[in-house]
Structures are given as structure tokens and as C-alpha cells.
């Protein structure tokens, strides 16, 4: 058996680069919400070694098949293993799953060492012998629901019950993403219903639904991810109130520029302890129009507002995730005030603690949420505290 194991071991040839003095082997892996590249160096005698004084400037990472050119890691860590020799872990928010990378190690006064084809095992074949229907589903349907490494805008179904107010609410949010010719298209469907049981006053309910389509284009500029997006959104709210039913419909168009700067936090990220991701801010302008009938729908308006958004997610201690987002608006019409909407999410990531469901389509997380403030499109005062299970789709 030992002989068999030794034979298999020597068959390992993938992702290795040879040099007169040193050979390097690499792996792309996913841990704590980020992708990382690990490199193992060996000297001419096959012993584990680490070059002296490695810096980010000595490494160039190129996504194979990509057009964005090479980039440098934002952090280089030397990690000493409990088994085996030390390895080098390269951090960069630009690393993505289902991709292959080439790493070039620039050796002073010598030829560079190139490690080719460091691939994610979940890399999919560009062509194969699968039938047309399977290929279409894999590429366009299933692919749209994967959001590798995303911290926000996850597809989810949620049911909440507020014991104190005898309130039950359910919500469904689907926001698949399709990419073609460098553009991302994100249709959105949201439906939520809230029912209140009021002592002595029967039951009231509110139903909200939204349809939207966003088109965006993103590009890397050095270590920053810049994107521009346009979004059209239609909201419909139906209020079943004791004083009378109301329906309010709102249409809005927003243009937003967004800067994602996860990379600035790469130096703080340690993949077992603390990972920042989805850190970005955006600025934009929105046009919105509202009309409707009944008590709540009587006021009709046609307004504009500039807005600014800030979002960040921090995953810590293996399975805790804290997200914060702040939306701010400056409505242009007379009499309107500055409006802000804050959202805090604290989530227990149970995906690794519980066995995956059949088919691995989703996993439950426990989520505590606090939302407060006023926001588009109605700028009505909102405040909500909830705790419930969120069924988020697996990122892979």
C-alpha cells in the first residue's frame, strides 16, 4: 500500500514550475469567503524552502484567458505548516473562482519563475460532449445564480415571525446575474408580505412587490473595481388598512458609479480569523415617480435625488458574519429632507456546520437584521428588527 501511495505521489505534476535553483507548485483555493493562491517552493534537492524577503512586488498574477493583464497580490504571507514545509499565500480581492491563473515570481538577477495553470477544481469545460440542453442550463440558468464570493444581493427566501407584535412576514428575493460581452444584466424580482394581528382591530396586511433590471459594466483599475450601472425599478405596495385600502406604484431610474475596495483590506485578512469583503461605495442620481389610489396613494410626485451608498461585510471567527450598509439621499424637491437608511445584518454561517442538502442548492443561515431610516421610493420611516432563517444559495 505504501508503494502505491508513493507511486501516486510522484504522479503529481500539475501546477509545477522548474527553475535552475527552485521549483514552485501552486493551488487556488476558497476559504472564508475569499479565493487565495498558495505556493510551495522547493530547492534543487527537493526540500521545502522559502525565498528570502518575498514582497508583493515580486509576484505577477495573470488570469488565463482574461484580457485585464497581470496584477500584483496585495499581501504575501509566509505560513508555516504543522505538516510539511512552509508555504506562501498570496492575497488579492481580484482572485475569482472557476478560473486558472499564472503566477510569475520575479527573482532578482535571474530569470523569473513561472507557475502555470493554477486552477480552481470547479473550472468548467468550455466545450464538451454534453447535450445542448445541459450546456444551456449550466451556462445560463445555473450560472446566473452563482455569485462566487459575493457578500450582497444574494438570492434568498426568508420567513420571519415577530413575537412581540404578532407579526408574520415572508419575503422572496431573486436576483440572478447574466454576463455577456463584458456587461452584467441583473433582473430582480422581490415579493414580501407582512400581516399584523392587532388586538381588537382585526388583521391588517401589506404586500410589496418589485421588478427591476440593472445593466452594469465593471473594470479593474489597478486594485480597485470600478463599475457603472443603470437600474430601472418598478415597486407596487398594497396596504390593507382599517382606514381603507391603498395602492402605491412607483417607478424609478437610477444611475450609479461604484468603487469596490476590498483590496485595501487584504492586509488585514487572515483566512481563518477575519475576512473583509464586499467593501464598496457608490454615488448616483435617481429619478422617481409615484402614483396610486386610496389613502396612502393620494400623494403623487415626480422627483429626483442624488444618493450615496456604503456597504461592507466582515466574516470573523470562522462562522460569524457582520454586514452594514448605509444609503443616503438628498431629495431635490422643496420641503424634503436628507434621508438615510441603515441596515445591519448579523449572520451565523451554518453552511459548514450542517450537512449540505441534497443537490447542494442552498444552505440555511440564522440572520439577525436591523433596518432603520427612510429610502427610495417612498421615503417613509421604516424600522425593523428581525431574526430568522435565511436560505441563501451556495456560492459554488
Amino acid at each position, binding site marked *: 500500500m505504501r508503494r502505491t501511495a508513493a507511486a501516486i505521489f510522484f504522479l503529481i505534476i500539475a501546477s509545477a514550475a522548474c527553475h535552475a535553483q527552485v521549483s514552485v507548485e501552486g493551488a487556488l483555493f476558497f476559504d472564508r469567503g475569499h479565493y487565495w493562491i498558495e505556493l510551495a517552493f522547493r530547492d534543487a534537492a527537493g526540500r521545502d524552502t522559502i525565498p528570502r524577503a518575498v514582497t508583493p512586488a515580486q509576484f505577477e498574477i495573470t488570469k488565463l484567458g482574461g484580457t485585464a493583464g497581470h496584477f500584483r497580490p496585495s499581501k504575501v504571507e509566509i505560513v508555516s505548516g504543522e505538516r510539511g514545509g512552509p508555504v506562501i499565500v498570496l492575497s488579492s480581492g481580484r482572485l475569482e473562482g472557476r478560473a486558472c491563473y499564472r503566477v510569475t515570481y520575479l527573482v532578482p538577477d535571474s530569470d523569473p519563475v513561472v507557475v502555470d495553470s493554477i*486552477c480552481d477544481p470547479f473550472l468548467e469545460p468550455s466545450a464538451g460532449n454534453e447535450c445542448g440542453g445541459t450546456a444551456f442550463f449550466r451556462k445560463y440558468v445555473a450560472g446566473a445564480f452563482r455569485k462566487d464570493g459575493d457578500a450582497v444581493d444574494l438570492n434568498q427566501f426568508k420567513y420571519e415571525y415577530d413575537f412581540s407584535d404578532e407579526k408574520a412576514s415572508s419575503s422572496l428575493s431573486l436576483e440572478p446575474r447574466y454576463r455577456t460581452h463584458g456587461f452584467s444584466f441583473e433582473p430582480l424580482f422581490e415579493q414580501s408580505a407582512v400581516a399584523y394581528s392587532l388586538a381588537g382591530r382585526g388583521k391588517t396586511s401589506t404586500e410589496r412587490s418589485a421588478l427591476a433590471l440593472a445593466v452594469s459594466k465593471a473594470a479593474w483599475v489597478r486594485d480597485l473595481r470600478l463599475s457603472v450601472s443603470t437600474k430601472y425599478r418598478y415597486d407596487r405596495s398594497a396596504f390593507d388598512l382599517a382606514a381603507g385600502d391603498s395602492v402605491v406604484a412607483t417607478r424609478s431610474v437610477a444611475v450609479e458609479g461604484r468603487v469596490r475596495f476590498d483590496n485595501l483590506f487584504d492586509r488585514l485578512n487572515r483566512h481563518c480569523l477575519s475576512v473583509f469583503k464586499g467593501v464598496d461605495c457608490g454615488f448616483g442620481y435617481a429619478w422617481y415617480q409615484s402614483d396610486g389610489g386610496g389613502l396612502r396613494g393620494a400623494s403623487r410626485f415626480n422627483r429626483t435625488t442624488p444618493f450615496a451608498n456604503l456597504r461592507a461585510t466582515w466574516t470573523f471567527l470562522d462562522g460569524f458574519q457582520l454586514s452594514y450598509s448605509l444609503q443616503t439621499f438628498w431629495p431635490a424637491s422643496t420641503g424634503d429632507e436628507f434621508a438615510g437608511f441603515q441596515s445591519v445584518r448579523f449572520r451565523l454561517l451554518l453552511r459548514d456546520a450542517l450537512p449540505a442538502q441534497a443537490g447542494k442548492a442552498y444552505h440555511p443561515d440564522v440572520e439577525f437584521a436591523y433596518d432603520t431610516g427612510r429610502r427610495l421610493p417612498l421615503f417613509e420611516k421604516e424600522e425593523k428588527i428581525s431574526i430568522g432563517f435565511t436560505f441563501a444559495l451556495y456560492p459554488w
Partner: protein
Amino acid sequence: MSSWLGNRKRMRLDIAKEFSARSGVSAADFVRLFYDPVFPPLIGDFDSQYISDGGVLEEILSALGQATGLATVKIRSYFSRNETFAQFGEHLLRAGAYTKETE
């Protein structure tokens, strides 16, 4: 902390050992044909040809559980005929295979 490269090699060996021992395919052929190609065949292809029945598969998954430190039920939940052995191994690594030994 153990390296991901080291754990990935170890996972490759363990999967090759357990599946080859109960399927009649040599470990070297297993890794050459079903593990190492850039786009290897799916687990379902191997399963339908070389795994005689569900009991054998349960034995394999149980043995993998002992080798990796993961519960068999967890390993079974990641076993999908529509994925490759390399992807199956990566799922197990992401689920914490071998981590108990180093804690």
C-alpha cells in the same frame, strides 16, 4: 495550520485509495483517468462502471470519513454523480477535512 496544497494532495491519495480498493481499478489508473485530467469524467461515469452496488459506495464513504475526520453523513451530502472526483475532494476540504488533527 496545514497547507492547502498538502491537504489537496492528501485528499487525492485518500480518494484514490478508497475508490480503487473497492472497484478493481488500480490507484495509478484511477488518478490518471478520473482525477488528474484537466476536464476529467464525472463521478457518475465511474460509479456506473465500477461500483457494484450502494453498499460498496457506503463502505467507501465511511472509509473516507475515517481518513478525513469528517462524519460520513457529511461526506455523503457532498457526493454528487454530476461532479468530478477533484471537485468532490475540494468540497470535503472546504468542509474541514483533516482540520481536526491539527486543532
